[in-house]
């Protein structure tokens, strides 16, 4: 289906924001200013945005992974709050207590990044159950890596979603690797076939093609929203960086690394498509790029300048009642 100019601009802005967020973090991390570990989403932007452009902030939920920044931005979590969170500041969306792998924003329908591989799909069942029980029309979308695909929790969630006919889309991102191990080695058979084995529709799309993802997502989300139950989308994805920022990637060939960036850049593909079709022009896209860069400068500067959490924050928020 044809997207409006506004929709195209929105999608591009989101994808570019994710890209620059990650690229900037990578630079800052190498400088040593970022605490903890970070897992970058660069290259996979089309998947998060292709899905989330169909989702509402209030009734639709996503569950995420350790590689969650892109999912968060696509679902509308505040970029500056995210940056501050990664910098472990009190102004972060989780007050600095969660960090990169635990960014959550329930008001935006974001159930949390998750540092446990396969942790989110069972939680996403719950958001779907709430939608079904309260008849909100909401849909729940867990993002799942090719490595996570093998975790028992994911199989359990797929079966449960089918049994209860829950409004869900299981969004698999197959970027070919789980840490340093290839999906071709560790993920037997096919994810699409796994979906079908549970009696769900399953489809595979190219994750570097925003339009393909967006179209598959539309169908799957509409189905879920209209009581048609869960389905699976598998997107081939291209991880530009290592597993974490700083990973030397000895397990990937130079050719692969080159090809991933040169042949499978979803942002380049998008630009080419929309400019060739004369839907948007280079200048307006460049303007977005510039704005996004400015936003990142601000986000990093504000995060670095923001105050640390207070020492007493260590003890708060464990329980609602009872300390």
């Amino acid at each position: 289906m044809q997207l409006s100019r506004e929709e195209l601009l929105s999608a591009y802005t989101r994808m570019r924001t994710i890209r620059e967020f990650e690229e900037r973090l990578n630079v800052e991390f190498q400088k040593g200013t970022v605490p903890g570990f970070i897992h970058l989403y660069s290259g996979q932007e089309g998947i998060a945005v292709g899905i989330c452009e169909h989702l509402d902030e209030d009734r639709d939920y996503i569950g995420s992974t350790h590689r969650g920044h892109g999912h968060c931005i696509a679902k509308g979590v505040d970029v500056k709050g995210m940056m501050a969170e990664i910098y472990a500041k009190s102004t972060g969306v989780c007050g600095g207590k969660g960090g990169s792998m635990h960014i959550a924003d329930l008001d935006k329908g974001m159930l949390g990044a998750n540092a446990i591989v396969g942790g989110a799909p069972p939680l996403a069942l719950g958001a779907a159950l709430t939608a079904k029980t309260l008849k909100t029309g909401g849909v729940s979308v867990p993002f799942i890596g090719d490595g996570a695909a093998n975790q028992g929790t994911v199989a359990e969630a797929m079966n449960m979603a089918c049994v209860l006919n829950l409004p869900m889309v299981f969004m698999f991102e197959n970027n070919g690797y789980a840490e340093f191990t290839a999906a071709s080695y560790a993920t037997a058979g096919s994810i699409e076939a796994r979906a079908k084995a549970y009696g769900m529709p399953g489809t595979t799309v190219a994750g570097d093609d925003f339009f393909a993802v967006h179209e598959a997502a539309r169908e799957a989300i509409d189905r879920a929203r209209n009581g048609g139950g869960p389905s699976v989308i598998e997107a081939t994805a291209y991880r530009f960086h290592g597993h974490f920022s700083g990973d030397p990637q000895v397990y990937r060939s130079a050719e692969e690394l080159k090809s991933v960036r040169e042949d499978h850049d979803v942002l380049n593909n998008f630009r080419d498509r929309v400019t060739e079709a004369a839907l948007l022009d280079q200048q307006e896209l460049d303007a977005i790029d510039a704005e996004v860069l400015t936003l990142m400068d601000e986000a990093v500067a504000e995060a670095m300048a923001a105050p640390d959490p207070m020492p007493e924050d260590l003890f708060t928020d464990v329980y609602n009642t009872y300390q």
Partner: protein
Amino acid sequence: MPIITYREAINQAMAQEMRRDPLVVVMGEDVAGGSGGSAGGEEAAGGVMGVTQGLATEFGRERVIDTPITESAIMGMGAGAALTGLRPIAELMFADFIGVCFDQIYNQAAKFRYMFGGKAVTPLTIKTLIGAGMGAGPQHSQAIYPWLSSVPGLKVVTPSNPYDAKGLMIQAIRDDDPVIFCEHKSLLAMEGEVPEESYTIDFGKAAKTREGSDLTIVSMSWMVNFCNEAADQLAGEDFSVEVIDLRTTSPIDYETVYESVRKTGRLLVVDEATPICSMASEISSAVAENVFESLDAPIRKVTAPHTPVPAAPMLEALYIPDTAKIAAAVRETLEYEL
């Protein structure tokens, strides 16, 4: 007051809360029972022990949800539903099964509030069967509340009688934090007076089930009943024993324990769990740190041995702390002179 069983008390609590609050749902394996069966499934089995009996009939299968045997999916669905607006009761049939789904409990539900910077509320109640006494063997008989109680963010409830079971279950459902409600399988048929109306019992408020001045026993769940028996027996020997039922092992009502030990000077902790890092260890160490100066004798612990629960009923009986072992430990502690 009506006399009902522990099982019925829990059932009543759930039914009353489900009537009161449409957000309360129940999910788990066979919590309705019979889904898809050839008999048509109208007759709900009501859980493997009958604790959810009648709920599916009254509230329908949209609110009393039979699930596949996938505990991670059940616990996660409960946690996710709690995070997004429902107030779920998720059943983990036997607590021993927690090994297949503990992540969803301890890394997910219990940590949301903290790691999301205080912005998440997870009003999830997990109900589960604990403990020995039915010859059910090593993988169906464990008292695992000590390690559950060690998890920040999780509350753990261990009722010892029907009255407490009802009030604590209603509190668990209304509580905004994740709660594990431990039903002791050897107590399901225990009878007691239980008011028909709805009431709650605060978490972290221990009960004094016997008053005494010579020695304090602290315990929880099934064991409280043996402690009471021992205290009654010892009263006949002119020993005045106070029994404190923690009711919840997280939060722990340390203050009531301290106050009692300040009075009696002697402490015995009785725990059905295996000894190492048990609730007995915890309570003992808290007293040894905070009311040391009041102590007139070593702090004794009576627990299960550091072994799995044997299947043979005759060995299981030796495994379980009982009235005789408790009374013997009390006598020894009372005989101790500094």
